[in-house]
């Protein structure tokens, strides 16, 4: 049932460039998809492990800069030592960007998860600020506030197969769509594995999770690495699509956008960031024709507060509950215990909140 619904939705999105001729709308959808991807990565931390990263844009921006610089090439002098890098293909850049962001996720995770909660939030915010300052001040590498222009568009293929350069909006749309589907499948597999269960267990009740042998640091760091790498991947896509990046990419508002997407869509559900991403990716375009940017942001705030007030768990869990109301399965996990084929959307075990304090 759910699989069929997902495939239908996917089929619908695959047809969009066929009938949507307006390039500006298509552009909006590409950017929406990229931020959706970032929101999906944030959801891995915020939704499944319960750790709030308010510096998530750092991973996004690092992915963007690393991918851009890898494919542009650069020459810098570090401690009197000249380092010259010749341009590499954008696709390699994309992977390097994801790896670099994943590595940062690892370091942040190792550093911050010793003490969690508010401390983690502060560490991530500071991290984003440090990275922003570096991008602003290391002019030799990043061009500073002057931006890094001329980033080559994504190129796919191998020597033997020939190359395809994604110049058009429709091509980029399909590439981003493919990455989203792939990422969705990977996150789904992770969430429904012992890895995902360990993360959810830590979120729900850390003391109890630890008592059955789950290592806090191992699984939280793993989530941070994944989350960072995926955000970096999104950043890389962004850089090669927009083809110019500057330190503004690190602005706090971008993190806030991701958080809003996750929370309104439903944190800790697989579909949540997709739904939230669509709403808050498309809303600006709809609103733009009526009101100025400042008013827009106020409206987003109001919209988010409304959604969270009416549906505290987010849109996706509310819809699921509504569907299950009449259904036979009242399984709170949405996937049941039958050893047969289990389908579910990851709201399995994905109920928010945390309980601590055993004695």
């Amino acid at each position, binding site marked *: 049932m759910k699989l069929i619904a997902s495939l239908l939705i996917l089929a619908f999105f695959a047809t969009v460039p066929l009938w949507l001729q307006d390039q500006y709308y298509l552009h909006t959808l590409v950017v929406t998809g990229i931020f959706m991807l970032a929101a999906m990565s944030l959801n891995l931390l915020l939704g499944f492990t319960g750790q709030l990263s308010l510096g998530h844009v750092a991973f996004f921006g690092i992915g963007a800069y690393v991918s851009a610089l890898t494919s542009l090439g650069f020459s810098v002098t570090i401690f009197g030592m000249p380092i010259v890098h010749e341009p590499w293909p954008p696709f390699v850049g994309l992977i390097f960007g994801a790896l670099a962001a994943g590595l940062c996720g690892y370091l942040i995770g190792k550093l911050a998860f010793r003490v969690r909660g508010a401390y983690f939030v502060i560490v991530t915010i500071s991290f984003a600020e440090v990275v922003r300052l570096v991008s602003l001040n290391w002019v030799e590498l990043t061009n500073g506030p002057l931006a890094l222009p001329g980033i080559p568009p994504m190129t796919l293929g191998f020597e033997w197969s020939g190359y395809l350069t994604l110049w058009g909006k429709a091509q980029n749309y399909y590439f981003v769509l493919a990455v989203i589907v792939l990422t969705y499948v*990977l996150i789904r*597999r*992770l969430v429904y*594995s*012992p*890895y995902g*269960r*360990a993360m*959810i*267990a830590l979120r*729900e*009740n850390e*003391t*109890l*999770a*630890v*008592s*059955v*042998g*789950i*290592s*806090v640091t191992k699984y939280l760091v*793993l989530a941070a690495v994944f989350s960072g790498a995926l955000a970096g991947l999104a950043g890389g896509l962004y850089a090669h699509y927009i083809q110019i990046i500057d330190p503004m990419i690190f602005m706090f508002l971008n993190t806030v956008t991701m958080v809003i997407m996750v929370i309104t869509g439903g944190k800790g559900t697989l579909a949540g960031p997709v739904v939230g991403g669509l709403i808050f990716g498309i809303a600006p375009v709809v609103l733009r024709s009526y009101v100025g940017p400042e008013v827009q942001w106020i409206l987003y705030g109001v919209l988010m507060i409304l959604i969270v007030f009416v549906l505290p768990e987010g849109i996706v869990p509310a819809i699921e509950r509504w569907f299950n109301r009449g259904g036979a*399965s*009242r*399984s*709170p*996990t949405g996937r*049941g*215990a039958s*050893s047969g084929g289990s389908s579910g959307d990851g709201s*399995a*075990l994905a*109920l928010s*909140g945390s*309980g601590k*304090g*055993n*004695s």
Partner: protein
Amino acid sequence: MDTSVATSASKPILSVDHVAVQFGGLVAISDMCFDVHEGELVSLIGPNGAGKTTAFNVITGFQRPTRGTVTFRGTSLEGLKPHEVTGLGLVRTFQRTSLFEKISVFDNVLIGLHRRTSPSLFGTLLGLPRERRAEEALREEAWETLRLVGIEHQANEAGGSLPYGDQRLLGVALALAANPSALLLDEPVSGMNASETSRFIELLMRLRKMGKTILLVEHDMPMVMKISDRIVVLNYGRIIANGTPTEIQNNPEVIAAYLGGGVKNA
């Protein structure tokens, strides 16, 4: 001091050696020493606030002792984190919440089975058949664990929605899933009615037959007297007696402590 009778000449599996715990000025445990032997069922009893839960916390790595050491199967537990202690086969339940309330009973047990699998990350992400098979096997084990404690009919219910007695059973199932060789149960029958308690006693008997070593904290004296090989009595953080149920029942110091401190069901 070792008055073990149930086990003959076996080496202790768990040794608590001169352990003391202080919270600021409060001495929760002072100089505690006792052993538990392989396959034994030992009860740790004492009035409220005697330090029983604190002893569990020390043994399972949740609380650093101020002094002293705990040894399990010849390994010192000093400095080990709780999940590492669990990794050695020493698993506990909690006096209060011992289950994931919002998660289904079945998934609770799947979480408990964490220690049983070590899937490869890439295999998981690629959805390899090997990991799928491992997951299937894990689900089968989860069913077995549920059947063992007798809550398989509620597999799909949220843990927190179970009747109280079944919640306690789920707590034990969660701990059992972690494959303990020694199981520490903190007041598992508190809040259970008589029939639930007798069902629980049957479960304990089955676990003993499976060779599990059990350390039990419990206020239900008839049950403790009935099932224990040995009883360790704690009062104000100090061990005042250690012996068979008969010895404990006739120990004047224990009687005095229990008449002085109001213990439920004593």
